[in-house]
């Protein structure tokens, strides 16, 4: 397939470092859109601030580059004004769960038909490698030179608890699964959260001696198992990937349209 059809070629080569996992997410995203057969003019990418949020500048869809952490608030406005659009919100771990944590849980609670891609590289890459709420205990960062003491969020449990109706996780190593889960997340009628474990060889990798981008990719292969696998019971350290929640509940735009109809009925 011709990926360039979906890209703004004038901005390439992109600004991400060599071996950055966010490029793999971009690659899989355009392939998923192609497989779904969506038109470019029917997609809106709304992003905040951070390395991951730069993804919206590289795709040839409608795009909105907004405030740090507030992408979901802007996306809610876009979606409510024109519910026929497919709204995709790429966010980093800090953008989604620290700065935008409140918007994240409330978008999930409302079940508005938006696709949130949480690209988790466990650090703030753009600003120099500070620890994020997903870094976890014992990791090192430029702001935690003697190691971090903050516990991390589990994105899947948080999204499930907040009421998201589609919750999944995968990694950038598993590109086929990544494409298929992006497809499912976009097709789902309701708020969908897809956490993608991504590597930052420049900061998280270097500070934590994780080796090269290839070594970090291999750690995703060895450190994750399909959801429900027996290996997880033997080794609780392993991270599960797959679909955790998939259910149908009333969607926010539909409920809103219904309310308008009811209120204006004579």
């Amino acid at each position, binding site marked *: 397939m*011709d*990926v360039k059809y979906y*890209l703004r070629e004038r901005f*390439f*080569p*992109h600004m*991400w*470092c*060599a*071996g*950055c*996992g*966010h*490029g*793999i997410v*971009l*690659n*899989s995203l355009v*392939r998923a859109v192609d497989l779904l057969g969506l038109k470019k003019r029917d997609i809106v990418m709304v992003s905040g601030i951070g390395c991951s949020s730069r993804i919206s500048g590289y795709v040839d869809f409608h795009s909105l580059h907004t405030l740090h952490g507030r992408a979901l608030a802007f996306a809610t406005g876009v979606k409510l004004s024109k519910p026929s659009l497919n709204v995709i919100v790429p966010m980093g771990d800090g953008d989604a769960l620290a700065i935008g944590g409140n918007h994240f849980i409330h978008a999930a609670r409302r079940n508005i038909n938006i696709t949130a891609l949480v690209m988790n590289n466990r650090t703030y890459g753009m600003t120099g490698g500070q620890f994020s709420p997903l870094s976890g205990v014992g990791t090192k960062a430029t702001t935690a030179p003697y190691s971090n003491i903050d516990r991390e969020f589990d994105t899947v449990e948080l999204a499930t608890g907040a009421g998201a109706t589609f919750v999944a996780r995968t990694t*950038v190593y598993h*590109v*086929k699964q990544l*494409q298929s889960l992006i497809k499912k997340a976009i097709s789902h009628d309701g708020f969908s959260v897809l956490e993608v474990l991504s590597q930052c*060889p420049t900061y998280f990798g270097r500070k934590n001696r994780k080796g*090269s*981008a*290839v070594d970090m*990719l*291999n750690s995703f292969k060895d450190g994750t198992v399909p959801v429900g696998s027996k290996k997880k019971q033997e080794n609780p350290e392993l991270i599960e990937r797959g679909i955790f929640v998939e259910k149908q509940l009333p969607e926010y735009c539909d409920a809103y349209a219904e309310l308008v109809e009811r209120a204006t009925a004579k």
Partner: protein
Amino acid sequence: MAKKKKLKRHAINREWCKGCGICVAVCPKNVLELNSKEKAVAARKQDCIACQLCEEICPDLAIEVMVKYVEESTSGDK
């Protein structure tokens, strides 16, 4: 008559490639390598099975594996 995927050529965009080596590591047939300028090149084209894994995982979107579908006789007389 089954159709088989065959390699036409590797189109590698050297301007976009940043030489991370991910394609070299994931290739199941060890077709790719980095040249002296740290850009991916298809050094052993004849071994390529056209799985397109390098194309789908490239973080720089720099690789396109051009493929063709050829009719393959199942009787085995060719």
